[in-house]
């Protein structure tokens, strides 16, 4: 498999207070593929994901050392522009968090905060990304009702549309289907598969079958350490490390 690197992590260490959540992680995330970060809960998957858009810096008493290069730029450098870096990445969290406003305003929120005020353009953007998130037909008649009234599955797709509306290059998903019913999960998974042609997708998941269905590239973390990483096929069919074998067989969970 021919891989171009999009995000390059070098010697990343993260501490919460005195507890080390990530230990010396170095890894290259391929461009325009789906990368799945797998591992048992509490092993640093979400921490790694949140390092990519520096949301990790919003946590109290967190210490980060090491480098993360996105498009060749070290995002942990002092003068790095956090808001511009975050704009490059859409985030889907475990539970959908619609903003306290209408469906329309949720999708238009990103473009608006980045200075877009043209009503016609905003309407076009909202339509485009609701279509892309497969929501337009369901919602086009009630764009101005509150987003909190939607079902959880619809909310998660709305969050996807909202993330896409700022035209990111990367989509980060933190167990994005864990709060959803099977049908909504399938919806989201289908979206990811469609999106990987244009975006680099990174998802955290503890569902091995989901990783198998989606991933081109797999990263296995255990207790803050990077155990193994490689193309999905190799990891699932021929893991090199004993720990990975056990996890995939379901011995560790």
């Amino acid at each position: 498999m021919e891989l171009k690197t999009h995000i390059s992590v070098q010697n990343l260490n993260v501490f919460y207070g005195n507890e080390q959540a990530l230990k010396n992680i170095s890894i290259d995330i391929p461009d325009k593929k789906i990368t799945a970060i797998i591992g048992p809960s509490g092993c640093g998957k979400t921490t790694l994901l949140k390092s990519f858009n520096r949301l990790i810096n919003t946590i109290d008493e967190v210490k980060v050392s090491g480098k993360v290069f996105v498009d060749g730029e070290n995002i942990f450098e002092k003068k790095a522009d956090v808001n511009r870096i975050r704009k490059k990445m859409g985030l889907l969290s475990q539970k959908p968090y619609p903003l306290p406003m209408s469906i329309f305003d949720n999708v238009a929120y990103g473009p608006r905060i980045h200075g877009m005020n043209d009503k016609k353009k905003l309407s076009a953007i909202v339509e485009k990304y609701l279509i892309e998130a497969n929501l337009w037909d369901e919602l086009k008649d009630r764009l101005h009702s509150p987003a909190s009234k939607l079902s959880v599955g619809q909310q998660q797709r709305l969050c996807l549309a909202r993330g896409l509306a700022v035209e990111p290059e990367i989509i980060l998903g933190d167990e994005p289907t864990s709060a959803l019913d099977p049908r909504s999960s399938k919806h989201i998974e289908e979206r990811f598969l469609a999106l990987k042609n244009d975006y680099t997708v990174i998802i955290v998941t503890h569902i091995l079958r989901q990783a198998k269905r989606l991933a081109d590239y797999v990263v296995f973390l255990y207790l803050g350490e990077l155990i193994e990483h490689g193309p999905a096929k190799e990891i699932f069919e021929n893991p090199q490390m004993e720990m990975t074998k056990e996890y995939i067989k379901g011995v560790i969970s």
Partner: protein
Amino acid sequence: MNNRILKEKFVGKIMLILVIFSGVLILIMGIALYIKARPILAVKPFWELMFSLSWHPLRGEFGFLPFIMGTLWVTGIAVIIAIPFSILSAIYLSEYASKFVREWTKPLVDLLAGIPSVVYGIWGVLVIVPLIKNHIAPFFGTFSTGYSVLSAGIVLSIMVFPIIIHISLEVFNSVSNGMKEASLALGATKWQTVKYVVIRKAMPGVIAAIVLGLSRAFGETMAVLMVAGNVAKIPSSALDPGYPLPALIANNYGEMLSIPLYDSALMLASLVLLLVVLFFNIISRIVLIRVEKSTQ
């Protein structure tokens, strides 16, 4: 019957009675004040008393308008000062401050609430009154003794800070991190996130915080009467003295009761104060319900 079940029923009844009692208390107080105020209401119609400017108890003239206006001036000034200060402080503490600053500031703010109001009054007399007399009034080219609705408003605003800060801080903290992260992840700055997401989501709670502060401001007596000047005239500017209702009641009750109808007039003043606070509470409830609906 089983002893345990008996106790269960007994405790339940006791608590029910306590709840009914506190609920009914305000009604009882209102009725008692009304009965006491009846003698004056028998002589003069209610609206005439409310809208009359003339306060001459010896001549039997009891016009409440100056006192109502005094109360509104003082409370209005206090709220105008207190809202931006305390909301911005709460936002800073919940969204920007480091853990260290937050944990040291919170108890200090709460401590403000525990200072006796007479201390605030003295501080007002020693600091705010001279400040207005010597600096603020001359700056606007007028004269003021310093004893004014502005002084009272400033002192009062500081007294309601801790209430509004404390409650709105709780409200801001209750906005989920996931929602803030959703906004930040789109590239919004912290301030944009606060403005468009946190404040919006927290609005009902913030309004509740302001109303609680407002209720406190309406009824605060001691500190206000020490600095407001207590002149029974409608203030024409913030630098004029005023005479709020609570100050009227506290200054005169028990002293000039030999004057006919005076006692009854003061009871009516208490009733009016009670009704004003009640009125604001009801209005704010209505606003709150509206806002809750629109920010879902």
